[in-house]
């Protein structure tokens, strides 16, 4: 009896771990795919292409709503924020400081890098979340 209990518990733990690994892999795969596809499509298509990309990746790789949102959010935060940061470092913040003064963000280069990342992230996250809810609804 105790044996069976032990076995059951072990299986549950292994099961849980496996589910977690699979969920994590799905999360990473979704995030990575959104990053790569958003970048590639962004080369040729308008900026809002990040929305359909996040949406379809999220349909393709089913995840719970929160995870889907996080994947889209993180992907675009990394892509937009990361590209902005890389461009800004190469540019010595010449332009970001000027634009941050116009917007107005007090002329802070960091602020505009973060705002760039967050704006992209909100669109990506929202689109991915919408797809996750659509799956649940159907």
């Amino acid at each position, binding site marked *: 009896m105790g044996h069976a209990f032990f076995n059951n518990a072990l299986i549950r733990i292994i099961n849980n771990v496996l589910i977690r690994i699979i969920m994590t892999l799905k999360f990473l795969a979704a995030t990575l795919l959104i990053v790569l596809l958003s*970048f590639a499509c*962004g*080369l040729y298509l*308008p*900026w*809002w292409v990040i*929305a359909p990309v996040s949406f379809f990746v999220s349909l393709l790789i089913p995840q719970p*709503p929160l995870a889907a949102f996080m994947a889209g959010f993180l992907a675009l935060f990394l*892509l*937009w924020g990361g*590209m*902005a940061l890389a*461009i*800004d470092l*190469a*540019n*010595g913040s*010449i*332009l*970001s400081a*000027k*634009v941050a*003064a*116009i917007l107005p963000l007090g*002329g802070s280069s960091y602020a*505009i890098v973060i*705002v*760039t990342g967050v*704006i*992209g992230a*909100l*669109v990506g996250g*929202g*689109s991915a*979340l*919408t797809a996750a*809810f*659509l799956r*649940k*609804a159907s």
Partner: protein
Amino acid sequence: MRIVPFLLSLLLTTGLIICLNTSWGSLKKTPLFGQFLSPQHGFWQNAEPLRQEFNEKIALPGLQGKGAVYFDEYLIPHVEAGGETDACYIQGYLHARFRLWQMEFQTFAAAGRLSEFLGPGENNNYVKYDRSMRRLGMVTAARAALAVMEKDSIIKRDCDAYTAGVNAYIGELSSGALPLEYKLLNYRPEPWSNLKTALFIKYMAYDLAGGDNDFEMTNARSFFSKEDFAKLYPATQDSLDPIVPKGTHFLPPSFVPKAPATVDSLYYNGNSTVTDEELKPEKSNGSNNWAVSGKKTLSGRPILCNDPHLNTNLPSIWYQMQIHTPDYNVYGVSFPGAPFVIIGFNDSCAWGITNAGRDVRDYYAIKFRDDTRREYWFNGQWRTADQRVDTIRIKDAEPFYDTVATTVFGPVMYDPGFTGYSDVASDRSYAVRWKAADSSDELLTFHYLQSIHNYDDYKQAISTFKTPGQNFVFADKAGQIAIWQQGQFPAKWKEQGLFVMPGEDSSYMWQNSIDEEENPYMIDPDRGFVSSANQEPADTTYPYYLGSDFPIYRGLIINRQLDAMNSITPADMMKLQTDNFDVFAQMARPILLQHINEAGLTEEAKAYLNIFKLWNLRNDPSEEGPIIFHYWWDHLDHDILDDEFARTPLHLLHPYESTLLEALLKDSSWSFIDNINTPGKETLRQIVTAAFRKTVDDMARVSQEGNLSWAAFKDTWARHLLRLPALSRTHLPIGGGTHCINAAKQFHGPSWRMIVQLTDKTEAYGIYPGGQSGNPGSPYYDTFIDRWATGAYLPLWVMGPGETMDKRVKWVMHFSTTPSSE
């Protein structure tokens, strides 16, 4: 129910995207934030890497041969082309690549199309601007000029090539590579055309020859008595040192314009007033130029200098370049928007320009039959007016349709439907006669100047230049120097066009142009130099009427200095060109110090007075003296004149500073000194002292604000064309001012300083307040500004044919007709 979260999420996300894809605001619109912030589409794409490489192979369809552009460390291109056509093609490409937005902006401004992408503006000001430019006939004038340009096979060929070069760049432009300003304002460039080049030329004509004071002078003539008017608006000043010295002998005029018989009853009657308000170019658009002969220089060869004073805009009005073809080798500054080098030098000669500033825009009062303005009274009968409807497109609003009548004099600038910038309704109509509306081919001058070898070539080259009239200074390696006031000027009877003229018959029309051989000039004078600084070109013995709106002080100090200088080197010229000595203050200070009543002054006031007494009369950046002088003179001026001028709501021309100074120098009890609002009779001593007391209050305030140095007080900017402080360079540590040779004001000043010594190997220096790139995200956006502010120069490197591997060459762009296979 499970559909609710989906719908909610869908709604929020699409809502966010729509918000980010919308331009917000009413008068000033935001960019589309999603696109603007996207690192692959928006402003981040304009953030150039500091270590940007410009080595490229570029295929330009339509190029005849091959070409190469060698960039030095300042991103100054040294163009190597197989011929003039290819040189123009490559120049068009380079202008577009580095300055596209400004080129288009300026031609949109010229064509009266600002509202199209800026919206109506505060108080409808952009629409008023557009209507003013359209009514003045800028587009008509550009089309007329284009017709002449395209009749000339050389200019047609070169403009076609230039346009093809600009369009080659626009054609390859992805939305990410659009200049920043397009993204901020959310529009896209149009294809370039030869008409846009013609519009740019007319924009310069407007900027330099579009000014007049006809309305303000008409009002002043009606408000003041004849005697007072003569005192306030003298035709010339005693201290004038004209371009062609006093005492020069002039031949009798070949044409004598005849004043109409009705001039006393209809023109000088002082009965008419005007409430309309004109669009006017910046008043202080001016310049300095001079050339000294070899007998005054250390090298024994001429030195030529030029510094055109224009708005110190960013991106700069100038783009520096060298162009070498088998036929010529020219270095200097070009206008993004037009082919050729405008101010510069080649292997044998140098040239420079300043504005002549003659009055070539006059108004005629038109009597229309009725409000339809289809017929007007002319030479004793009703005559049909041509009418056109101008469509002024306005961003996010219905277009405005402006009906403009045209008379024999020219287009109707102001009428009951358009009072300019004035809010006062008016039932009168005024047609404008503007010299720049006549067709001419100014570009041809710059085509010829590229390859001039001597004085005769120069004289030939400038002969096609009609408007805006310019003082072309010249020097060559053979040792000759010269200056010509070049342009086609109307031969006017005395005071013709000083006021609004009657427009009911032909008698007040311009009768003829002055034969251009009669324009003022000087060749190799004994004094060893020629110069100009926008002053009156000659004294009153010149056989034609010249007008009366000319600054005198820069010309005065330049001539005084050049007279005294000998064994001149380029370094001496740098000192002279950036000289902050204020000759106006030198003449005015004795009046102030002689009449100040020091009794009863506070300790603080005495301290400021002492600073002023000890001031070295230089407007150097750290001086306090110029601030005291600025306020003191300003208060004095207003205390003397405001009591009279405030008695009318009409706009009157405020008398020039030189008028007040010369009046007080001659007569310390000048009639205007008395304040007519008080029973007593004020003396100059009272006014000077009162003005000083006010100055002390001003100085205390300036001191509190921490601006107690001339540079901080004056606050010179290199200002972005959209006037955004973030894209401008503000608070530049530069001295000088209106009356100094270094004429750096707040938003205006020496837009290019050039010094060329015509030794066998040309020795040249130059600097301008900008950078070669028009992109605010480029490290080359403001390259030269700090040097310019401190008065430093850069040597101008004329790259020789064997120097393509020189270490000064940082990058090379190769141009060919077909993509290279690599």
